[in-house]
């Protein structure tokens, strides 16, 4: 039996969560103050994931850049692959929140979607 101390990143409260593991599987999660913490802790010790946010250039918009993010969390070790996939990607204005900018980024199954509005110039 082993334990791991984590800080939940589910929300800014940052609860100190303790995960108890036996033979590589989670037997208990304590210290979390909401169900999100339980989910986070179980994932973090088995398959850690993150939402990735970045920006891409916009052509013909009132702003040069638009905020983008992965449509769901992706494995932590795919973060840089995802950033590489975004290199050189350009979006044409108008861009609306939720527009798909790049599908299946770096083979993660997650799309890159717009997280900001950029009207056309």
């Amino acid at each position, binding site marked *: 039996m082993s334990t791991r101390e984590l*800080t939940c*990143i589910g*929300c800014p409260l*940052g609860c100190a969560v303790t995960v108890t593991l036996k033979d590589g599987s989670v037997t208990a999660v304590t210290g979390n103050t909401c169900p999100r913490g339980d989910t986070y802790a179980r994932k973090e010790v088995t398959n850690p994931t993150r*939402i990735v946010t970045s920006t891409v250039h916009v052509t013909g918009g009132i702003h040069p850049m638009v*905020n983008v993010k992965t449509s769901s969390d992706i494995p932590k070790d795919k973060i840089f692959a995802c*950033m590489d996939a975004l290199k050189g990607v350009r979006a044409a204005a108008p861009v609306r929140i939720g527009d798909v900018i790049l599908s299946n980024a770096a083979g993660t199954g997650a799309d890159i979607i717009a997280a*900001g509005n950029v009207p056309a110039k």
Partner: protein
Amino acid sequence: MKYYDLVIVGGGPAGLAAAVSARDCGIEDILILERDNELGGILNQCIHNGFGLHTFKEELTGPEYAARFIDQVTERGIDCRLHTMVMDISVDTEAGSFRKKVTAMNRTDGMFEISAAAVILAMGCRERSRGALNIPGFRPAGIFSAGTAQRLVNMEGYMPGREVVILGSGDIGLIMARRMTLEGAKVKVVAELMPYSGGLKRNIVQCLDDFGIPLKLSHTVIDIEGKHRVSAVTIAEVGADRKPIPGTEERYTCDTLLLSCGLIPENELSKGAGIALSPVTSGPIVNDSLETSIEGVFACGNVLHVHDLVDYVSQEAAAAGKHAADYIRHGNKKHAKTVEIRSTDGVRYTVPKYVRPTEMSDTLTVRFRVGDVYKNCSIAVYFDDICVSRRRRPVMAPGEMEQIILEKKKLGEYPDLCSITIRIEK
């Protein structure tokens, strides 16, 4: 002079939520004045996620969170003037009743004055600069506040540098450590003067630990080298007196130094208007209705005190909007009894500072920060000498805002109440 019931200074998260709330409380005649070319304020450059968990029960990026409120303002047809800088707020003596005069300017209208029954201050805050920090060394290019770098990278599409040292572990510094790393820069170290981080724990995990960026607590920058561009930064450990310890110097070659050393509420307008400011928060001193020392002038968001979470800003601003609406309709309850909230023993300040037991809402959220890291301590609330509540907290730190709730009913049970004290106890 054009008249509005309510003028809101600033179109960031606080101003937007205040406007929506005041409109929903029945105030038709509202004007938002914003100096930038769009609404949303600092949220527009905060492209990371984690906003809105409390308000919308989902994790949004800054621009997404801003868009939700901008849509609400647009749906309600609330007037906004962009590119407009407010120059002065004063009491309008000519209007007879207790009106406020807001002087503003922009490129199309020039300088103009607006008369208002109520004003909500929502100007936000500003970053502490190198000059304010007194960092020794040369003055080459490549030294940015973390927020400036954030704007350059996220909104304008420029990379400020390739090899980075960050001073200060405030949230913007942590967020920028990750952001610069994702964009291909090498962040060599984050140095923090204090023995604890000024940022949220979750940001240390997901911005530093995830990328193996070292955080050196009790360290500060003691030298900056470089003629045209930063070429190296030297950091050293500091003792309990926060002075560098000789022999602990470490030199990092780099081309960029980012500063994330605290935020200061931007209160030049408040000062000009003669509003009483708190020396601790640098924001206006307010009562339970978030009204400042000038009748009919309210404050909310980071201009009042610096928040960790935009969700709390929105809540506070909604309260300010509601109270401003009450004031516009019913005027000020000047003679209501006022009770001071005293902060001692680890509690640095409270917002609000004064409560009117007969006028307050049924419940009042009092927010504050502690002055040090406290483990397994309690937040105790005293009505005069009587302890009315104690709440155990496993960890409290200056970087994370705390709160207590006061109930009107409970205050009503103490008709002779003179003061409320909030303190940290073992």
